[in-house]
Structures are given as C-alpha cells and as structure tokens.
C-alpha cells in the first residue's frame, strides 16, 4: 500500500506532533507515504476570502503535481483535505473556472485532469487497511482510558465522502479498536473557532471552552482530534481560557498518537512532548 503524502503547512509547523505520529503509525501498519515533491500551501480558508480563482489555482498546482505520480493523495490536515476536494468539485461543476485555472496551470507547464483521489488518513485506515488488520497489530491496548472523539468541521462537511456528516464514527471505531473507550460527545463536529481565535479571541475562546468543558464533564481524560488547527486552538489557548472562564487543563491529542501507543510505539516517537497541556495521565505506565 502506497500513497502520496501532502502534509500542508501546519504539519510542518504547529502540527508537528501529527506528522510524527502519523508517519510512525502508517509505517507500523506497513503503509508507505511518499511526500509530494515541492508542494505549496493549499490556500486554506483565508486565501479564499481574497481571491477565488487564485485560491483554486494554488490547490490546482498541488493536484497537478500529484497527478503525475498516479497515486491517491493523503491529506491529514482538515483544511487541506477540504480545499483539495472542494477544488476538484468546483472545477468539475464550473466550466469557466475550470478554463481559467487549467489555463493558468498550463502557462506554468502543468497539466490538470482532475483524476487524483484525495483521501483522509481515517478513510485509508478504515477502508484500505481495515479495522481487523489494525486490531491484529495492537500490542498494548489503551484499556481503561476514556476519550472524547472530536472530528471538527471540515473533514465531513460539506462533502461527507467516508463518514456521516452529523455523527461520524470512524475515529470512534479506531479508538475502540485501540482498546480505549469513547464518551458520548455531542460536539463531535461542532466548530472549535480555530480560524477566529487568533483574530477575535473573545469569540474563539468561547467556542473552545464549550468543547473542552463538555468533554471534561462527560468524563474524558483527553480530546482526541484529527485536525492540526483544532489541536492548536484547543491546546494552545487553555491559559487564556483559564483567565477568562476557568482552568480546564485537558490534553488535546491526535488519534494517531493514541493508535501509536496501542501499536506499541514509543511515546517519544509520537510527538507527545509537543503538547502544551501535558498528557502524562494518558502515558502513565508506558
């Protein structure tokens, strides 16, 4: 099993722990990831507010580069995953946009056909690797640990390609396969406010506080997420939350970190030291 890997800016910056744990877990499961050569930023949500066509062209370059390799692309960052999927759909549905974007790409010697498949790590684990294969490789199950599975917005919205829009379950199933328990968490797909915390803190902090507090009340020892922006937002601003509301101190982890532990990988390889809120309780005894 081999895929192209599109890390995106976050996984090289604030989301390093995601990259470290993802690569470790995929390696342990025998899935090869080949980093896309000379990839650029996908434009995320911000660039769309400035220039629509250019924003699609940025994503278009990534897709065109990927097409040359004839492999599915794995995009672990939710924003990248959405932008790449949205670009393909929009170009397909709007001929005029398609003309402009492919024209610009051709000016730089790139060819876009729209043939590449953009996948999420959860999708690959669930549908290509399979739960049974994962379960077989679990060596140190996470028994006794309780987590709140948090998917965030952009991996199931607006395009639910591999999971339900309102009640996604793939990560729940993977965490359960790791031996952990998932709390019933109503905010699974509620927005964390990540794109606003840096700019309008009073708004972003409230959204983050709601998510963390509810997870805590439902007995979770950590929130487990799939998105680097959510992780940064929920992990990085707990000091500010403490100042404004109350101290919450809940570790925010990536699902790949939990799965990595269950696969018996050393915590040091899984980026645990990168969490601002310490996850010692989760690591206890390992």
């Amino acid at each position, binding site marked *: 099993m081999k895929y192209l890997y599109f890390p995106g800016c976050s996984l090289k910056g604030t989301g390093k722990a995601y990259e470290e744990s993802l690569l470790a877990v995929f390696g342990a499961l025998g899935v090869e990831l080949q980093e896309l050569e000379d990839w650029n930023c996908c434009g995320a949500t911000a660039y769309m507010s400035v220039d629509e066509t250019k924003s699609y062209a940025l994503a278009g370059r990534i897709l065109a580069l990927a097409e040359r390799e004839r492999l599915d692309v794995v995009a672990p960052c939710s924003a990248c995953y959405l932008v790449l999927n949205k670009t393909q759909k929009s170009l397909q549905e709007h001929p005029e946009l398609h003309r402009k974007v492919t024209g610009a790409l051709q000016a730089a010697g790139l060819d876009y056909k729209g043939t590449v498949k953009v996948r999420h790590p959860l999708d690959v684990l669930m549908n290509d690797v399979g739960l049974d294969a994962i379960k077989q490789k679990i060596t140190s199950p996470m028994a006794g640990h309780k987590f709140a599975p948090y998917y965030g917005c952009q991996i199931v919205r607006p395009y639910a390609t591999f999971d*339900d*829009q*309102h*009640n996604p379950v793939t990560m729940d199933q993977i965490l359960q396969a790791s031996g952990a328990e998932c709390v019933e968490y109503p*905010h699974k797909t509620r927005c964390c406010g990540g794109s606003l915390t840096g700019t309008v803190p009073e708004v972003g902090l409230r959204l983050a506080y709601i998510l963390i507090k509810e997870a805590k009340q439902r007995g979770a020892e950590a929130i487990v997420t799939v998105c680097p922006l959510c992780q940064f937002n929920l992990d990085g601003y707990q000091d500010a939350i403490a100042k404004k509301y109350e101290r919450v101190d809940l570790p925010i982890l990536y699902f790949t970190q939990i799965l990595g532990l269950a696969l018996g990988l050393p915590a040091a390889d899984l980026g645990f030291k990168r969490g601002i809120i310490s996850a010692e309780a989760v690591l206890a005894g390992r």
Partner: protein
Amino acid sequence: MAEQKEHQNGIPRIGFYICHCGSNIASIIDVEDVRKYVATLPGVVVSRDYKYMCSDPGQELIAQDIREHKLERLVVSACSPNLHEETFRNAAAKGGLNSFYFQMVNIREHASWVHEDKAAATRKAKDLARAAVYRVRFHQALEKRKVPVDPNVLVVGGGIAGIHAALTLANAGKKVTLVEREATIGGHMALFDKTFPTMDCAACILTPKMSAVKSHPNITLWTYSEVEKVEGYVGNYKVSVKRKPRYVNEDLCVGCMACIDACVFKEPKFPDKFNQGLGKRKPVYIDFPQATPKVVLIDPATCIQMKTGKCKKSCADACDRKAFDFNQQPELKEIQVGTIVLATGFKTYDAKRDALYGYGRYPGVFTALEIERLVNASGPTLGDVVLRDGRHPKAVGIIHCVGSRDEKTNKWCSRVCCMYSLKLAHLIKEHSGAEVYNFYIDMRTPGKGYEEFYDKLLAEGVHFIRGRVAEVTDWAMTPEEQGKLVLRVEDTLAGFVRRIPVDMVVLATGMEAQADAGEVRHKFNIGCGSEGFFQERHPKLAPVNTFTDGIFIAGACQGPRDIPDTVAQAGAAAAEALVLIDAGHVELEPNTAHVVEEECCGCKSCVPLCPYSAITLDEAKKKAVINEVLCKGCGTCVAACPSGSIRQNLFEDDEIFSEIEGVLAQ
C-alpha cells in the same frame, strides 16, 4: 381566414387547420403565416386558422369543409395528440371521412409553450405541418378493434382507499376481489386515534366500512396476500395472487382469542409492529380487536412450535374449532378481471435518516405515528402520553417537515403533516397538559375547516415558532436544560435564535412511496414519477388513470394526500372502472402489425422479438403469422423484419419516411 384552391391530380385533397388556442399558440407562433405557407403545399385545398379548433364550432367547421370541399385527408395543428387526437378523429367521422385519414401536429406542448423565439417557433410549426401533410397522403382507412370487458374487478390494497373503492364497486353490483398484504385491512387509518379537523374518532368511522367489506356478498377479501403476476390487457387481465400462510384456518377461526390467552408465553414478549414497537405481543396474535378479518395468525419467527417443533401447542388445544394448521403452505390463486384499482398507499419517512434530530439515539424522540398510538385510547398505553421511561412530559416539541421540503431527502411537501401536527398538539395538550411547541417553516392548511382548526390551536396557547430546528441535543447550557432535550432554532419572526428545552420531541415525518413501489409498478406495467409515486395519466384531467388502460390508481400511492382526498379519489377510480364495465367493451387503437404473406421469407427473426408471443410461424406455408388480438402495436417486429414484409397500421414505413422527408424539406 382561409386559403382554398383547386385539386391537384394524383394527390388526395387535404384540409389543413391551425388552432390559436386563444393566445397559447398564437402569441408565439404566427398562425397566419403558417396557414398561408401550408396552403402552397401540394394537395392542400383548404387551409384555415381558428381561435379554438377543439370547440364545437371548430369541429363543425372541419366536418362542413370535408363535405363541401370533398376533403380526403385532414391535418390539424394544435395541442398534443394525447389530449385531442380523439376529438378531431370524431370531427373527421362527423364529416363522413374515415377517422384515420387524419394526422395531428403538436405545436403547443412541443413549440409555443417551450420556445421564446417567435421566428424559430413559427419555422418549427411550418416544418411539422409540412411533415404531416406529406405523411397523411399515405394514410389508410382503418377501423378500431372492439374487445369485451370482464366485469370483475381487482382492488389492491386494503387501506381506506382500497376499502372505499371496493365498496363502491360492490354496491354497483360488480364482483370485487380485495387483496391486502397485511393480516388486516384498515391501513394507516386504523392506527389513528382522531382525524383532523373534525376530530371524529378514526375507528368509529373506519370500522363500519371494514366490516361492510367483510360481509359484502360481492367482495372476496384476501388479506395476508400479495399479487404475484399480472398478464393480459384492458378488459382481460389474468392475475396470480399469493396467499401467505397464517397457520390458522381462516374459515374456521372465529376470533375468540382463547388461543392467545393459552399461549405458552404467559406475557406478551415481542415488539408489536402494529403499535410501532411501543407495545408487546405474543407469537399468536391479532393486530387489534377490530381487525378484519377477525382471525388470529402466528408469527413463525417467534413461535416455539414453528421454530423447533417442540411446543406443547396449548394454543391449538384451546381452539374448539380446531383451526390451527402448523403445516399450512402458501397458496397461489388465479383470477380473471377486466379492470384493476391500485390503492397500495404510502410509507412514512424513516426518521433515523435525519441524525441531527436524534431519533433512535435519544429515547425522548418519537415519530408522529408512535404518538398516534400513544394518544389512542386502545393503544399500548390506553391513551396515556408517556415517555419511554414512564415519565409524563412537561414540554413537548413537534418538528414539522421531517423528510419533506428538503432537497437532501424529499423535495415535496407531504401535505398532511401540518394538519396532523396540529391534531397531535391538541391531543397531547389534552391528554397530558404539557406545554406544546410547533416548529414549522410554513403552515399549510388548505382544506375545508383546516385554517379554522389552526386558529383554534393558536387560541389554545400552543406555541408556533417559525423556523427549522437545527439540532436536538442533550447538551445542557443552563440548569433548566439539565436532563432535557434542547431544540435549537431561529425564531425567524422574532429575529433571534432560541434554545428550547423539552421532554418529548415529535418528528412530523412526511409521506413517501412504498419501498416496493418500483416492483409493483413493473408488475402492473404502469409508470412512477421521480419521487417514486405512481404516475397518473394527466396531472389534472386524468388523475386516477394510468398509461395502461384498465388500471387505475387511488390514494397516497399516487402522491401524498389526506383522508378526504383519498376517499374522493378512490370513488373516482371506482367510477372509471365502472365506465369500462358498463360499456361492456373497449375500443383499441388499430395500430397492430400484420404480415404481407407473399413477401415473407419465413426467416423467423421476428418470432422471438414479440414480448406478447403474438407471432408464430405457419409451418405448412413457412410464413410468419401475427395474432391481431395479442398484438399491442409496438412495431418492434416491423423495424426488425429483414424482408420488410411486416407492416404496422398507422405507422407504415411510407408514412414515417414521408414524415422524415417533410420535416426536413425546405
């Protein structure tokens, strides 16, 4: 206005008529221009335009011209032949011309209504008229075929639509077979407690009709049965019906229910489907006390005797009539009927599909049908409105349009939900005293006494919040919300978002076509719209007819509707069947195929093509023969015949080739 000219040698004398249809045609197509143009075509001796060709004076004009100008062919440019072909054929006959010396041109549905460019539409009208003028020269004089109509009728579906249609037909003296899939007739109406807006009790008005069906000498009632196969054509259908085993002899059982008391299960243990799973039943059961026929049946999936063969069969022992038969087998019955009324009903939307409303996840969320059973005096709680844990709700939210008016699920308005939500709001308030909220997008109350009913509910103090609920959640933000289900909604009239805590949520689920509507329509060879409901022949003028003659539709199988509309439509379907029966025969289009014997080479390539097995090979002569009674006139064999020896009346090769030539000539 008219052009007239002298007759040309060798070509039949053709009359051409173009209709204005008020302004429907004339506002887009320059009818005078077309009239003048057609007058120049070979053979055309009269060319006229007229305000309404289909009117009496319009038809009279044609008949008179035929006599006066000795017309030999007739072309009318007007609306769709599906609407008025018959009208003008009759006009031709009135003038003394064979009806089939006529060709119709559709310039309304196919031109003036669908084009905006006047010049292009007029060009199209000319092309189509020319094609008809070229074609009609080759028309032959034909006669319609007459076939007798069997007076017996099949009604499929025993809901209120089927019941009403069957009784109407039976009261008119016709023999009716009523086939129902479930163990009892009554359909959805039997589940309801009250009916809007009059609030009369559903059972009080339905059960007398159910018993009338059972006791009517002209009705044969087959419940727990399904139609397997339909063959034949209008007036002469052969139908196979499968009667599923009840494991109780229907003729012997008197419905005393002693067997149910005697069953080895002392307490009812299995989910009761009739009560939407809110109550329990035993393996031997009857859906409800007034079930018709009043005959018990056994559920083989839960009965110990059926599963293991090792039960002491106390039920059978308790039966003085010895009605039990654990070895009963399905039975296949064949009947002969002339007409069929389909009244197969609807199913309700599956509330689980809208995950955001939490049905199946939060026990406090109910479907409207479940509430119908809860408020029913003979339901599982005897009319007590309680939550699944036995508590009484203090606040109830009714969410409208669940599975309706939503591009993601069903686009249509289900028509009944506003009204039944009002009814349930009233009943819940009456039975429990709870605070009731209605969440609606638009209130749709078009019906006799419906708006007044809405007004009454407003006066009763039921809350009406205009907004589509975004979420049902147990996430509490305030102490009052603890332990409640919270509905988040924009009160669009007030202009802000509200959170409303309730104990019980009722989902007003919409109406959908039956899950197997697709299969059923194939069996009966009728059409479905994209929503899955059966397709009527014309949305306004033939609402109970289908494209297959002799098969009629009634009730919610054709689209969402309430009880009054359903009953009215059932009566209409029965009347349409009676029209055919009383006429005694039907006339069929003479568009059958026939073999020109001397040209047939006996290659047999046509024989397997015919879906009706109308073609055989005369072994002695080595020539194909077509049975005209069996032929339905599709023309597939005509197109396939390598020697060109098969011809189809009304669709001869000459006719179609000249139409092609005419449409393209300039």
